[in-house]
């Protein structure tokens, strides 16, 4: 997230209006979250992969992202089938796996991966500040928008601050162990980071006042929609409708 490694590419998807991408990512993930039939979810995965290929991001990076989320899902597979009541499919010693539990785990796996791929293709291809402005134009309150934008600016400084403090602990011979001294040091570190960010916030506010800030933010960017955006919106809305039909009509 912090490195924004997906924005530095060029593709059809990268060139789209960020508002359209956000709206579609939202619609599609709500639909996928509501659906439960396997044909729908499978179609969801296929659709997500189409977005993904249109965004021309490297496969290896996608897989490494998916690996993270699927590690969590792995634990679901280890627990759900054995704890969910239903018809027994097979048994491991005293534990018996239920068909319903297996279905549920499978559903969650498909949903999570489809939504993840859609977000990687549509949302992670927008720079974070732009996400902020796009959300603002979609009706997000101004204060929340700028909270997002400033967080993105200053989170790096906090990380730097943390690294600097950790380094200063290390050069003085600090090695983390499981003892009271370690916990105390970490507590101090956290406290210091907190105090310094408070100080920083105060300084930043002063600097903003000096530059004529009077409580109102103005955005430099306007978005404009092109034929491509319209086309994309139409096609992916039809896709969304098809998913709904697969789920509820057929």
């Amino acid at each position: 997230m912090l490195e924004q490694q997906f924005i530095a590419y060029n593709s059809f998807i990268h060139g789209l209006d960020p508002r359209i991408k956000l709206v579609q990512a939202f619609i599609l993930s709500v639909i996928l979250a509501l659906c439960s039939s396997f044909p729908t979810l499978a179609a969801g995965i296929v659709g997500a992969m189409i977005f993904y290929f249109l965004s021309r991001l490297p496969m290896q990076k996608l897989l490494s992202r998916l690996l993270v989320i699927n590690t969590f899902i792995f634990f679901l597979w280890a627990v759900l089938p054995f704890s969910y009541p239903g018809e027994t499919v097979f048994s491991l010693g005293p534990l018996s796996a239920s068909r319903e539990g297996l279905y549920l785990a499978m559903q969650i796996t498909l949903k999570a991966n489809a939504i993840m791929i859609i977000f990687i293709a549509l949302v992670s291809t927008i720079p974070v500040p732009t996400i902020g402005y796009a959300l603002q134009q979609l009706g997000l309150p101004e204060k929340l928008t700028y909270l997002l934008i400033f967080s993105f600016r200053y989170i790096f400084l906090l990380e730097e601050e943390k690294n600097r403090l950790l380094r200063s602990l290390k050069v003085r011979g600090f090695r983390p162990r499981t003892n009271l001294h370690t916990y105390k040091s970490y507590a101090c570190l956290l406290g210091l980071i907190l105090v310094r960010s408070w100080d920083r916030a105060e300084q930043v506010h002063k600097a903003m006042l000096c530059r004529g800030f009077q409580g109102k933010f103005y955005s430099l960017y306007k978005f404009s929609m092109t034929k491509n955006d319209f086309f994309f919106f139409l096609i992916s809305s039809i896709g969304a409708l098809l998913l709904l039909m697969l789920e509820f009509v057929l």
Partner: protein
Amino acid sequence: MKLISLKNISFAYPGGRTLLEELNFDLNSGEQVGIIGPNGSGKTTLVHIIMGLIKPLSGQIEIFGQEINGEKDFQKIRPRIGFVFQNADDQLIYPTVLEDVAFGPLNLGYSPDKAKELARATLARLGLSAFEQRLTHHLSGGEKKLVSIATVLVMQPEALIFDEPTTALDEQTREKLIQIIGELDIARIIISHDYDFLAQTTKKQYLMNKGRLVFDPSVVMHKHVHVHPLGHVPHKHEE
């Protein structure tokens, strides 16, 4: 004309010692003033008082010939005095450089297009055009400093205040800064511990001493760049 005039300013932080005591100071138009003094002597505090970021315990402040009372007055004069903070990270608030430089003009009521144009022109003037779309946190310390100066110059101020502009600058960036400041033909106050820098960028130097500003020509004894060791320490060459 007096741009800035401080009369009998006193200040102490809550629970702290008296930092400024009955301090008087004038900055006339076109004047270029340096302030030097030990760490913790209250230099930063003083310029924050001028900008209305800290309220003095007593004393009067007149800026551009008008008495300043309260936040409303300060809001009017702040854009006309460019203030470059000691720490550039405090000044750069947006993730990208262009947006940051455009922040001031937008606050002044310029349209987004006009603000962008002004920002671009200022960046170009400082030789920073290549940074426009860069992410602020990817800039080096020196680059951040130059961008923070751009964020101030873009507002076309009538006076400038720099708080220790040379800290953490390498020799080359320092030279560039001297050149940039030299090309600006407006009144300025520069706080620095760097005698040579002050000698090259200001005409008159004050010493911050016991809560007051003292004008003492012997403070900066001579104004040439030293080539011998410890040349930056004030000293006399024997006649």
